[in-house]
């Protein structure tokens, strides 16, 4: 009985320590948390845009830019899955055994978390009476199991983000994706109308070069020097 009480006290104290670490420290004010969340979001969208500066989700951005009417659903799916996966992965990483894993096994764990979340969401979509269920099920795979959603928790871990920062980073990943897709779509529409483009560049080559130039523009936000 006494041993059980000691075990319970030990567990409780460890839980409080973990909760303190999760919350970013009891001594850190809410204002600092909000500022750090805003900072992480700003990095995700502008300063180091996940699509242009990081290269994550480029295929999905280009293919979504090609199809009208899918941007909102794609961005929402990316935001939701990135945020939830990051939060769960950050929580798991606070466990001592998991925090000391080599990076590749940690990434496999993160991938497993993402896969589990996806199966849960898809399973619920199958069971619940959703409007346009077939369309949802057809697109959920592409927008939830892609490089940008998988990169967010990995980058949060690498950058040493707190749970609040990771949450903001995940939520703004969808915004970064939306911004990239809108810019690419606008460019594709302009390129389509331009008859002066030589035939060898018309279509995908021009789109890729245009996306590369956009990425170059966003790289300027990072402040990284480029000497030629």
């Amino acid at each position: 009985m006494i041993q059980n009480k000691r075990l319970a006290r030990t567990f409780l104290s460890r839980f409080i320590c973990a909760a303190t670490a999760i919350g970013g420290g009891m001594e850190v004010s809410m204002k600092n948390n909000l500022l750090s969340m805003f900072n992480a979001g700003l990095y995700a969208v502008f300063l180091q845009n996940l699509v242009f500066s990081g290269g994550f989700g480029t295929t999905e951005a280009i293919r979504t830019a090609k199809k009208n009417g899918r941007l909102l659903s794609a961005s929402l799916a990316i935001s939701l899955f990135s945020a939830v996966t990051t939060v769960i992965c950050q929580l798991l990483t606070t466990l001592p055994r998991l925090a000391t894993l080599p990076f590749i096994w940690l990434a496999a764990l993160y991938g497993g978390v993402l896969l589990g979340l996806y199966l849960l969401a898809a399973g619920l979509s199958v069971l619940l009476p959703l409007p346009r269920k077939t369309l949802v099920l057809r697109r959920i795979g592409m927008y939830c199991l892609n490089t940008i959603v998988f990169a967010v928790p990995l980058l949060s871990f690498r950058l040493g983000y707190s749970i609040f920062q990771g949450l903001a980073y995940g939520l703004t990943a969808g915004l970064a994706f939306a911004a990239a897709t809108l810019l690419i779509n606008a460019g594709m529409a302009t390129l389509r109308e331009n008859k002066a483009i030589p035939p060898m560049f018309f279509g995908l080559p021009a789109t890729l070069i245009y996306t590369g130039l956009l990425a170059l523009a966003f790289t300027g936000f990072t402040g990284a020097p480029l000497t030629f």
Partner: protein
Amino acid sequence: MAKTKAWQEQEFPETDEQPRRHWLWQALTDNPLLVQAAGICPIAVAAATIRGGLLVAIITAAQLLLCELLTSLLLKKLPGWLRAAGYFAIGLGVICGAFWFSEALSKWTGTDSQAVRTVGVFLPLLAANSAVALRCEHRARQLPPGEALRDAAAAAAGYGFVAILIGTVRELLGWGSFWGRPFTEVQVRGIWMPFGGLLLLGALAALLKQVFLRLEEKGRLTGAAAAMEFQIEDWEVRRQRDLDLLDNGEAPSADPHEGTFLLLDNGMFPEDPAQMQMTQPLPLFLKSWDADGKPLASGFAVPAPKPAPQTKAPPKKEPPKAELPKKEKAPSAGPKMVRTAPVRPEPVKPLVSKQAPRPETLPEPAPAETEQPRVTQETVEIKISELMRLLAEQEEQEMNDPK
């Protein structure tokens, strides 16, 4: 219904019926990166050196071979959302296996696994490579295992070639080195950033398209350059393009993912076919225009009920009619249509064939409400000019014969 070969060769460009080429040729004409724009992230991010490009190529090849084979054997029986999870899980397994092998090899040889460390955080992201998922969904599902492996080999060769080439160029220009050894003092910093990879991909795609255009001019290739058009799939743009083709006396375009088209003059439909409910896949995809040539709507059709045969007069044969779904609000005087999943066109018999004796009227539509719409993967392709001529003759006959 199967098309006659002569009519098919004349009216439609070769798609699935192309002569069987070497799989290495398919690596160019069906390249996942330069033609399908899939799997760009690993190239733009990870293939910044030769070793990185080689690692990306090897891991993607393993993923493609394994995923396409398993899709052809097993995964095609699962629903689409579960297949996507399967691709991701297989990718994670391949990544972990590659990392474990690399670590074991480095311990055995006593060297450091530089390639894995070079790729770093981007190595796990290869598990979510969109090139693998898209290839399996668009190809491996419809192929037998042997053909799926052949397709995977072609895709892996094409993807790997581009990855290694881009890694080589980026290492030479960006770091001035070759395989980690100093080669030149010229360094174009920034080429190893993602924008450098994208610009190089665009340049390679342009080179490839120029090769395709030259070969098409000589008549040795068809449709490869058109596959790289990659335009916005805007319904209005497609309708206008089809109208332009009709004005020039040509058949509307056949999109292999949406089926083919039949011109009907009919009533009001909702403008966006995506608003219609999904039903079972059906053979006929319809597009409608009003008398002024303004496009109305398009979608897959349910065959109309077969009219009761008349004993004295010859039965009137009407063109196949489409039915609107029950939720449709706008009243429709003409044929109705419902939205279905896009079906891949396969060889089908034309309703009107040049070689077969031409019927004076169109064939009877499929039977009726007592029978469920025939669920097949075939599509019906109709020569528009023949149909217009038949419709005109039918109208003239009706005008001459008041009965």
